[in-house]
């Protein structure tokens, strides 16, 4: 063993000195299987360089640099089985792609095709997806699984599939024209690779991203670790974020839209039609968020909890580096895994905190009616247009109560009806329902709030007792 630490990066000079080498090598060697390509350079450092000079050569030891998946291929793991080797993820409103085992290879079949998708009750859109759905079915595997994924193209346009975040041979990367010819309509392509590292990945086309991704061709790809350093979470949720522009009264999203999206979805559904995430009190939860929106990053905020961001699509985050948050920003083209202990019972909203992203099909070309006195005008307008109602003078919230007829196949005023009333909320939102005991995954209904725990209206007696005057100015110091 040389006394000079080296990192074989094919450079003449070492650029990284690591001390103490043995501990680091052991850490790197052991962690390589879990942390994979992030420390592949360090893994290579496990190979002792016989000759310092030779160690500087890119061909040290007479061998080519090791490819990121060489180790796992060599390990010849058995195909991962749900239950035995991993706890399957749950994709609300979605499903997991089936596979069959052929000679030790997991064979999957993705069909890229135009579909009709119910984005919410009362709104069906004609878009493109995989296997009849958008997002496409979640692909699940374990590190070291040999995968063979057939992709049949029934779209009217060529396509390919890129495995976002996956470290694999360039020929399997799925970038049309760059790494492979596109799969033309009617053709079936096939991808083969071995996932070398665990993580939350995504899959999407790479021929005409604006159109094909914009029309809904997205999907989550979860790779579970072979060995665990930490216990697996009790429940593991998978959510794909997306945004759409569907003009009110139409059924076709406009993939050419660049700035004015009016429908936002989790797993292809808009609130209140997103299936809730259900968990038992005290369980450990992992929520995997992927964002293949056209243009928007999404700050996903969870009420009632501070979670830790434990992984990105680049790999796991070491525990000491995990970022605590109540809102995780999921930029376009990334995934974020968060974990939390579900110790706070109730119905907890999880939503994108961009306020427009929780509205369904708002129009953005109407006059600003906030604060406009319309009293007398409403009567006059009714003489011309019976049934006219002033709208928007105090915002949107009240509109959810009224059931005015709207254009067909649209959900602009749908809103959400909870046990305490209705609001206009929609869009990129869902509810985390934490219940005692061991609830299943089906919606357990609204939370039964303990007596006296719901914030009440303040009675006059109470206000008087505390010296609060509802008609007066609020208390407080002003600065400046």
């Amino acid at each position, binding site marked *: 063993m040389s006394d000079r630490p080296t990192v074989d990066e094919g450079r003449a000079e070492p650029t990284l000195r690591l001390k103490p080498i043995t501990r680091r090598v052991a850490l790197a060697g052991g962690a390589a299987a879990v942390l994979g390509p992030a420390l592949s350079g360090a893994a290579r450092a496990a190979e002792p360089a016989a000759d310092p000079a030779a160690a500087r050569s890119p061909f040290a030891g007479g061998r080519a640099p090791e490819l990121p998946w060489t180790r796992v291929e060599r390990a010849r793991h058995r195909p991962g089985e749900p239950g035995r080797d991993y706890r399957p993820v749950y994709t609300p409103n979605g499903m997991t792609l089936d596979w069959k085992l052929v000679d030790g290879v997991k064979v999957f079949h993705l069909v890229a095709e135009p579909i009709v998708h119910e984005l919410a009750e009362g709104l069906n859109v004609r878009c493109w997806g995989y296997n009849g759905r958008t997002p496409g079915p979640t692909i699940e595997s374990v590190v070291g699984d040999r995968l063979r994924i057939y992709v049949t193209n029934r779209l009217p346009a060529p396509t390919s599939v890129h495995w976002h975040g996956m470290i694999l041979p360039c020929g399997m990367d799925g970038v049309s024209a760059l790494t492979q010819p596109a799969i033309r309509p009617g053709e079936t392509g096939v991808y083969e690779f071995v996932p070398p590292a665990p993580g939350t990945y995504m899959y999407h086309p790479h021929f005409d991203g604006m159109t094909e991704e914009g029309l809904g061709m997205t999907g989550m790809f979860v790779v579970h670790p072979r060995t665990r350093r930490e216990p697996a979470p009790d429940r593991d949720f998978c959510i794909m974020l997306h945004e759409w522009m569907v003009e009110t009264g139409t059924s076709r999203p406009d993939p050419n839209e660049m700035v004015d999206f009016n429908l936002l979805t989790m797993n292809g559904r808009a609130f209140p039609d997103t299936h809730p995430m259900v968990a038992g009190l005290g369980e450990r939860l992992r929520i995997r968020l992927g964002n293949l929106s056209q243009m928007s990053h999404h700050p996903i905020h969870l009420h009632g909890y501070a979670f830790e961001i434990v992984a990105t699509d680049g790999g796991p985050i070491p525990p000491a580096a995990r970022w605590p948050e109540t809102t995780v920003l999921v930029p376009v083209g990334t995934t974020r895994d968060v974990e939390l202990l579900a110790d706070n019972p109730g119905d907890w909203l999880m939503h994108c905190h961009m306020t427009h992203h929780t509205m369904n099909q708002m*129009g953005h070309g109407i006059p600003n009616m906030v604060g406009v*006195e319309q009293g007398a005008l409403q009567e006059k307008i009714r003489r011309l247009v019976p049934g006219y109602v002033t709208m928007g003078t105090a915002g949107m919230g009240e509109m959810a109560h009224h059931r005015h007829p709207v254009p067909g196949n649209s959900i602009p005023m749908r809103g959400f009806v909870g046990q305490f009333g209705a609001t206009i909320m929609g869009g990129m939102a869902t509810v985390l329902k934490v219940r005692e005991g061991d609830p299943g995954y089906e919606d357990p209904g609204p939370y039964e709030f303990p007596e006296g725990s719901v914030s009440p209206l303040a009675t006059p007696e109470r206000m008087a007792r505390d010296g609060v005057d509802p008609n007066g100015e609020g208390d407080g110091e002003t600065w400046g």
Partner: protein
Amino acid sequence: MRHPWRMARRLASAGLVLVFVTGCATVPVRESFEDARTVASERTDEAAGGVEWIGVTTTVAEVDGAVAALLAEGVTPDEAVQISLLNNRRLQAAYADLAAAAARRTAAGIPPNPVLDAVFRFEQGGDGDVFELSLMEDLWGLLLLPRNRRIAAAELERSRLEVAGRILDLAGATRRAVYRLQAERQGLELARESFLAAEVSSEMATALREAGNVPWLGVLAERDRYEQARLRVAAREMAVAEARETLDQLLGLWGPETGWELAGDLPPLPEPDPEPGSALGDVERRAVERSIDLASALLSVEAASRRLGVERVTSVVGDIEAGVEAEEELEEGGSVWWIGPGLSLHLPIFQQGQPRRTEVRMELRRMWDLYEALAIDVRTAARRAERRLLYAHQRAAYLEEVVVPVRAALVEETQLHYNAMSKGVFELLAAKRRELEARMDALDARAGYWTARSELEQLLAGRLSSGLVRPMDVAGMMDGSMLDGSEGGH
């Protein structure tokens, strides 16, 4: 005088013969009017309500009473026509024209009076006296009496037809003026509704401004539209007033009488004939057969032709007078009568009358060419009226059944988008204004149909109306009333 008794008897019997020849020289004033009235009522039902000549077939008091009764409650279109036929003074003037023509006809049937010349001359400084007597008759007037009578008869017939035509004219014009007033009145209501939309739009912009939500620029833009709408309403109000005045003028009303109310709306569009042209069928032939204008022009030709016949004779030799001359001379031995025929005529030495004959022949030629031109006009008008009626019906039906419903559906659909908050209140009001404009166009088109129908019916009753003589302004019928696509929104 040798035989005064014989002379007296001769004179008396000559006078009796003359009386028989002349007959009663009364002018059939009333009958000629009634004949004209009969011609008119055979051709149209409009005259059924009563056509009267004030002072001849009825009194002023009766007419005033009838008109007042008709004006009492709301005046229906039929009643308006009745009033105009009773009360329009120009029509009454035409009756007097007719009576004058009848008088001329009567006069033309009476031989000219013979001219009696009697001269007494007394010998100055003596007992002699001379008594000259001549009785001359205009020979041409006598010989050509039948012809002259036939000329005057043709002129009278023409005048009678002309009066019948004027009755049809007035009835038709009144009917069309009623349609115009109905259309303008209903159009004004729609314009007022459209104005309300513009008004509320402007008020909404002001309310938005007061809340701090739009710039002053937006308020001014809406204000501009409001003022334009206001001007349009004012113009419509003026159009209603004009239509009323036209009708008052035709009905011969003035003063407090003009306060009447027109009852009834523009009638709805009738169902189209199952076979186009079946009720019309052969409009050209029927219009020509029934045409008063053509019959009248033909009578002018006939009169001119007869006049030419007369002139051919009278232009060569001017006046011819023939008669009896008698002279009595008182001489010694008694009076002596010299009696004999007399003749007086112009000798065609210098003037043989060619210029006059040429003039009259050219007059005939002119009458004939005008008659043929009128025949072309009538035939053209017939085809034009038929085509206009079909087009007017199709256009009115299309506007009512297709265009207005599309605009109404636009309002409904815009309201759905308004409820969805993807369209604002200004777009909703603009859609409503466009619907109202389509309704106004449909109303105008329906009035155009009824007007075209009245003109065709009048033509088939025999009278050409001025509107059919000129080509229609088709381009003007293509409305410029479409509002631009996007309006409102700030």
